[in-house]
């Protein structure tokens, strides 16, 4: 298990770079993680991130595109605009959550 330092935060990550422990996450760290993948967070990103964190707490799963749409009220099109190309994976990464497991 690698440990990495991101803008002064020392965190355990998996081989791909996803945080091992969602509790290591913070608002500061989210901005750093987002910057790593070329995303500058604005309020719309934050709404999605907050939902993902809350939903993970409740369900133990990182939200999929479908879950974001039904439970989070974020339509797929909007989600793809905020986190282009691989929205569910990028959101999980920035929100300090594991890669989503769900198929849909």
């Amino acid at each position, binding site marked *: 298990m690698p440990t990495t330092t991101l803008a002064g935060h020392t965190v355990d990550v998996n081989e791909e770079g996803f945080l091992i422990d969602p509790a290591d996450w913070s608002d500061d760290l989210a901005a750093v993680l987002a910057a790593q993948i070329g995303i500058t967070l604005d309020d719309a990103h934050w709404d999605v991130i907050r939902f993902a964190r809350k939903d993970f707490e409740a369900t133990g799963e990182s939200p999929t*595109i479908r879950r974001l749409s039904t439970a989070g009220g974020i339509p797929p099109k909007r989600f*793809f605009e905020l986190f282009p190309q*691989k929205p569910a994976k990028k959101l999980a990464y920035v929100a300090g959550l594991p890669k989503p497991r769900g198929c849909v």
Partner: protein
Amino acid sequence: MTTVLTDPIVPNFDVVDPDRKLAIICSKGNLDMAYPALVLANAALGEGIPTHLFFTFWGFDIINRKTMDHLKFTMLGNTATHMPQGLGGLPGMTAMSTHQLKKSIADVGVPEVPEFLEQIVGAGGHLWACRMSADMMQLNEDDLYEEVEGIISATDFIEMTAGAQLLFI
């Protein structure tokens, strides 16, 4: 053992093969033959892969406004239900099997066909209808789900999806 890294590990999100495309030909109108195409299209789009679906023959039922929300599942000819085949032919069995399958699909949080198509389009997927099927069934664009981009020939589709990986379902 813990390895401390000075350079952060960043997932390779943007390494999408720029030439990778997926083409899915949907030729069946059974409920259980619609979902594999929709699930795979959705998965590909979620990975940033441009995806085109071509609906042809019985697959037209998936995009026909009249039938898209009423696809059925039958036990007949499907040995994977592990039930006596004779049962499948009894009155009401197809309705019951369809109800059961729809419930199982809903239980895992997967939407019904019309809503699933909407999600696929929202994720950037492209829906195309087959010209020959439309002519055979005497259907036009007004009969089809509004997000279908056009009624095109098989040749058009083959041309449009040059170099794509192809699934025939």
